């Protein structure tokens, strides 16, 4: 065993982000001092990023079973049953820290990583979604990050030729230095061609394909698990540069290898590169892998085993084929201008063995590296403590004057960063390639045709950090509910979700509390809405110079539409009836209104009745299935008035005519709650007059409240409020072209 004569000092252990007790576990596992290569491997595998050592016990609360689940958590991506022969693979992942340091390459490589997670399963990626968080759009840092992140995502996804069909973009000060870049990929796979990241067959060759290994991102995994401070920004090793063309070749080659039956097991080299891919594959197969570092294709001279094992160079895959089929593998790769290099073999002894120049430089049992049930695995069992700030978090309604300028408020809100149009972002993404995008970005969810099948899928990514900050449980639950609702309003039945959990430092018990509660909320919502979790990603240590970000769980939802009945969010025709499904409550807390108009980040977060939510969503789906709903839009940020405005002004981006509306509402709750409050489980729908009664029947059957509130037509949005309690009325009467202009310019000018 060689150790490059490097002595393992306390200093070195600390540099590897290993705690003292963790190092003791290493000594127990090895019964000797580790070599530097071994220390590197432990450090990478036990980093939060790879090990989920803080989150695993909590994640167990999430429901993962259901009739649609074909592959639950544990693989590179989850898979659901779509049709008799077809599965849908999907997964979301974060690339927050790399993007904060180097926005273009960080975001681009983020797309690359999640694409590989999906095609590694044997699936062809068909869609990408992105969920982005930045600080104030006017800040210097946001101006540095936002345009480059968007360009990076565009650069990668467009080049590989996977449409980016949806996403969300949110601005809050807490993300100022620690932006969030979460990317989700969806793919289709023939069920009989599903592949897993498993090593099998003693003696089978371990084959390396894709880009050569450089010194990029060494320690990337442990870096992603450390807080971002000015000091350790210096510590980063060279940035990973994205090569989407290589990815495209790798994608086509991998799928062709799979079609030809040449893959036994396969995994992309993501975080912790060769280390995690080989260890995880060996662990799943309960076998060992022996690697010969000298064989690994290297881009730079003088790279040693330590560097090779820990490099995070992009666009690389590790696969196992059957012994004797190496030539066939090589032939496929050659067609795509790539090489296959045998760098090791599957062995019986369940160890990861690394050889360099004929010498063994690492020899570690696989289980304690990767199996969280192993007695020496450094699982953290923590308990959260309710954060102090939550004690005094709710507004006193009496301090908020009832406004008498509701039209000004609507105008301000429609142009505010979190509500304004994001077309300058999504038009940089090729969202049409593959000719399946039936609903373009700019509606509640993207609707994608699965060619050759009687199937459409609808998908949306959603999360509300502010809600989760103010009420972790509700925030988690609402993230699931809203994602499902966005899918339902297109006519799809939500069937499963993937989640990306962006939080601060989990070693802080108050942060851990946020995490636990948010997961509980998500778990309850996912159970009641029957959308189990197929996998996801945890991103901790999202802390900038002003402390932790808002806890930000992001949900990526996938739903199915059998047949072709689907709707979009904007008004279709004049003279249609506008209906409100659900009921508005006196809820102002956590709203965009409070933030934008009153400068307040205060609760309470709107209540969420998950049973009711489920009924509401069922109602809308039934209506769409019955073919009587012409448009449907859920009410979210900005409340009822903003949602109505959006119904009036979003047609144009979809190539249709914007249509005004005339609304009349009688109510006795506060006018600002009524128009701008963010009560959950509400949807604006339109039907033609003749279908009104049928729609009412459907609502009654599902025991939900349906109220006629107006009709479509004209070129203005007119809202008349008859406020019974105070015996007075207020009016909004504004040209929709004016609304449209303000909405179009709020954010687009910053991109």
């Amino acid at each position: 065993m060689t150790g490059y004569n490097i002595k393992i000092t306390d200093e070195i252990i600390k540099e590897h982000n290993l705690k003292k007790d963790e190092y003791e576990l290493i000594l127990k596992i090895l019964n000797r001092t580790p070599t530097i290569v071994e220390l590197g491997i432990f450090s990478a595998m036990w980093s939060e990023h790879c090990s989920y050592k803080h989150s695993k016990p909590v994640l167990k609360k999430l429901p993962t079973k259901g009739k649609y689940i074909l592959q639950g958590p544990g693989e590179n991506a989850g898979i659901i049953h779509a049709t008799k022969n077809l599965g849908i693979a999907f997964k979301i992942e974060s690339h927050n820290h790399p993007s904060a340091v180097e926005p273009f390459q960080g975001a681009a490589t983020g797309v690359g990583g999640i694409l590989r997670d999906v095609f590694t399963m044997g699936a062809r990626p068909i869609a990408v979604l992105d969920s982005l968080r930045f600080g104030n759009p006017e800040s210097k840092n946001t101006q540095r990050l936002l345009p480059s992140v968007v360009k990076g995502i565009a650069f990668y996804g467009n080049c590989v030729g996977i449409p980016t069909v949806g996403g969300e973009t949110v601005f809050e000060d807490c993300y100022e230095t620690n932006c969030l870049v979460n990317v989700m990929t969806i793919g289709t796979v023939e069920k009989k061609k599903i592949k897993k990241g498993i090593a099998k067959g003693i003696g089978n060759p371990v084959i390396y394909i894709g880009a050569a290994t450089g010194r990029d991102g060494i320690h990337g995994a442990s870096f992603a698990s450390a807080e971002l401070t000015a000091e350790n920004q210096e510590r980063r090793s060279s940035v990973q540069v994205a090569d989407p063309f290589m990815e495209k070749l790798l994608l086509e080659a991998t799928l062709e290898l799979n079609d030809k039956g040449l893959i036994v097991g396969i995994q992309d080299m993501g975080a912790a590169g060769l280390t995690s891919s080989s260890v995880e594959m060996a662990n799943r197969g309960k076998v060992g892998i022996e690697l010969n570092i000298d064989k690994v294709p290297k881009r730079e001279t003088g790279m040693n085993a330590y560097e090779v094992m820990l490099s995070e160079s992009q666009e690389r895959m590790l696969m196992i084929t059957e012994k004797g089929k190496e030539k066939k593998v090589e032939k496929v790769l050659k067609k795509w201008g790539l090489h296959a290099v045998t760098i090791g073999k599957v062995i019986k002894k369940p160890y990861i063995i690394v050889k360099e120049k004929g010498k063994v430089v690492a020899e570690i049992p696989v289980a304690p590296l990767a199996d969280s049930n192993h007695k020496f695995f450094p699982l953290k069992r923590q308990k959260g403590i309710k954060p102090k700030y939550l004690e005094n978090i709710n507004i006193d309604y009496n301090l908020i004057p009832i406004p008498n300028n509701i039209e000004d408020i609507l105008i301000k809100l429609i142009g505010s960063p979190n509500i304004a149009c994001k077309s300058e972002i999504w038009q940089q993404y090729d969202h049409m390639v593959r000719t399946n995008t039936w609903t373009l970005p700019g509606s509640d969810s993207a609707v994608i045709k699965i060619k050759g099948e009687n199937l459409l899928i609808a998908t949306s990514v959603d999360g509300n950090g502010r809600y989760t900050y103010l009420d972790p449980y509700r925030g988690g639950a609402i993230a699931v509910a809203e994602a499902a609702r966005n899918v339902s309003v297109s006519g799809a039945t939500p069937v499963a979700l993937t989640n990306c959990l962006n939080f601060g430092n989990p070693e802080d018990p108050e942060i851990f509390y946020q995490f636990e509660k948010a997961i509980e909320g998500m778990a309850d919502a996912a159970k009641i809405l029957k959308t189990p979790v197929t996998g996801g990603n945890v991103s901790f240590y999202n802390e900038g110079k002003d402390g932790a970000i808002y806890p930000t769980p992001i949900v990526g939802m996938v739903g199915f539409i059998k047949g072709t009945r689907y709707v979009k969010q904007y008004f279709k025709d004049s003279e249609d009836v506008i209906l409100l499904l659900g009921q508005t409550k006196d809820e102002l807390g956590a709203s965009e209104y409070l933030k934008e108009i009153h400068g307040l980040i205060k609760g309470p977060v709107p209540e969420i009745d998950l049973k009711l939510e489920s009924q509401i969503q069922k109602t809308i789906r039934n209506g769409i299935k019955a073919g009587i709903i012409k448009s449907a839009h859920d009410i979210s940020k900005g409340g009822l008035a903003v949602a109505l405005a959006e119904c009036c002004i979003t047609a144009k981006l979809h190539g249709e005519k914007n249509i005004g509306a005339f609304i009349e509402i009688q109510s006795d709750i506060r006018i600002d709650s009524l128009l701008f409050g963010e009560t959950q489980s509400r949807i604006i729908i339109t039907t033609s007059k003749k279908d009104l009664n049928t729609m009412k029947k459907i609502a009654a059957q599902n025991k939900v409240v349906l109220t006629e509130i107006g009709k479509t037509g004209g070129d203005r949005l007119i809202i008349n409020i008859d406020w019974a309690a105070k015996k007075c009325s207020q009016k909004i009467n504004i040209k929709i072209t004016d609304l449209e202009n303000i909405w179009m310019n709020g954010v687009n000018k910053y991109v």
Partner: protein
Amino acid sequence: MAHAKIIVTLKDGVLDPQGKTVKFALEKMGYKNIEDVRIGKYIEIEIKNNNREKLEKEIDEICDKLLANPNIEKYKFSIE
């Protein structure tokens, strides 16, 4: 009037997908003797300035702030 000629290249060790692909293309075109190709940017700035020293500082600043991405690129320049 002065002319600044700036060359921005990738730092050593940083992957250069463009260079790699161009090398591949050249090999396919029959140029078998190519060892390496690296692609960078070339920028010419025409600038009004009489004070040579100030000018150097200014160009250096411009490179550092805008033209080169310090995470992955380095630069050099000459002024005529």
